[in-house]
């Protein structure tokens, strides 16, 4: 469904990503792992129109969408759940979720989808009228993912799910994510916690200093020494 071809991206005059080739097939859950500064967030930013693409291109269903702006990409079904959640702090959970559906055509199904989100994340139901800024870290992450799902994405991209969360919360989130995947959604997960990412994903890519150094089935990747080198340098 999604394919990048020799993608290069960065900020103003700093190129962070070089010659990146990744693929995500419909229905897959793919993980991108790598150390800090490896370019994982930059990659998602490039795919959602937030980061300048300096070389190469990327395609959605065979169509070159490199030059499209963020709003077009969202309408095409690419939804980015950014690092650090970025919820609308002063709005309630319900309002955040409704805004997630902003780009959808017509208002059919929005209330149903909202209900489905609350079933998927029961903890959110209790807090549905609370201000998003008052939620705990785990609840905020749930809200962010739910908000992303409200856009009925074709591809859901999540950046650093586990950041700042206790292991228990991360487990709960990953279980919910597994359900989302099982329901047929395609997920691209950027994650620093290698173990949890590769345990749940089917395939993975290892990024090191802006380049893909290894890719393959998640279970195999877990055993590779390249992971250690990518993270620790030795």
């Amino acid at each position: 469904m999604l394919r990048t071809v020799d993608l290069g991206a960065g900020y103003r005059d700093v190129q962070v990503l070089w010659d990146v080739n990744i693929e995500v097939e419909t229905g897959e859950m793919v993980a991108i792992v790598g150390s800090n500064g490896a370019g994982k967030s930059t990659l998602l930013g490039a795919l959602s129109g937030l980061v300048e693409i300096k070389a190469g291109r990327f395609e959605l269903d065979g169509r070159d969408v490199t030059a499209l702006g963020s709003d077009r990409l969202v309408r095409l079904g690419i939804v980015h759940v950014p690092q650090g959640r970025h919820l609308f702090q002063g709005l309630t959970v319900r309002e955040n979720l409704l805004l997630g559906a902003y780009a959808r055509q017509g208002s059919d199904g929005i209330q149903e989808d909202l209900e489905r989100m609350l079933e998927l994340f029961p903890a959110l139901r209790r807090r549905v009228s609370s201000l998003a800024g008052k939620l705990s870290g785990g609840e905020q992450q749930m809200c962010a993912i739910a908000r992303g799902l409200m856009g009925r994405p074709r591809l859901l991209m999540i950046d650093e799910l586990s950041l700042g969360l206790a292991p228990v919360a991360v487990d709960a989130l990953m279980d919910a994510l597994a359900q989302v995947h099982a329901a047929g959604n395609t997920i691209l997960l950027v994650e620093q916690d290698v173990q949890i990412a590769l345990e749940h994903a089917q395939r993975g890519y290892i990024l090191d200093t802006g380049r893909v150094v290894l890719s393959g089935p998640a279970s195999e990747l877990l055993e590779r020494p390249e992971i250690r080198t990518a993270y620790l340098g030795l």
Partner: protein
Amino acid sequence: MEAQRRIGDPILRVAHLRKSFGALAATDNVSFELREGEILGLIGPNGAGKTTLVNLLTGVAEPDAGRVEFNGVDVTGWAPHRIGRAGMARTFQVVRPFAGMSVRENVAIGALFGRGQRHSVAAARARADEVLAQVDLAALADRSSSALTLQDRKRLELAKAIAADPLVLLLDEVMAGLHATEIDEAIDLVRRINRGGVTILVIEHVMRAIMRLCDRIVVLDAGRVIAEGTPQDVSANPGVIKAYLGARWAARELGAEGA
């Protein structure tokens, strides 16, 4: 009053440094030593508190508790320009040269106000030319500093700091944004500067670079020092593995080794 300095003596001593922002302890009881002549690396995962620590060392932030001793003098709480004058130079992560000036003039600022304070603009410019030759920027001396490539801007940043004749040079994420060959060149340059008599503290994310460059490494996580030692020691340290790759991975790897 400058202390007598010998290779291996601690030139920077950090003791029980603490800094909190509200309830969050960004720096929590941090102690370590930087020894004369070495290249010490400071690493840690995102949010470990490296930036806060650098700000504490350079006077940009004041610690809530603890002590910083530089070249035998207690510099805790000193203003940034005093610490700069005392011989601790620093480069910035986001490299922004002084845009209204040429490359040479940028470097001259370092010579004018740093430790080796030159009082005449002419002498400062001469020193600037010396330094520019050291970092291979001599050809661009008259250029506007806003027209340089990223790699050259980083060299300029380095040159500004060296022109101040520092005793210690703090390199804040100097490798960011460079690709493989540029990183190699940067490593060479830093080693050359070190051999010229400047002790270096490198804060970095690019692990490969740090492992190749540093004599010793200090690892921070959540504001605390969790490991200290040679690159080999540190990369095998269970706490470090856990901090970088996650607790689950560490458990697996160490469990597999029957540790």
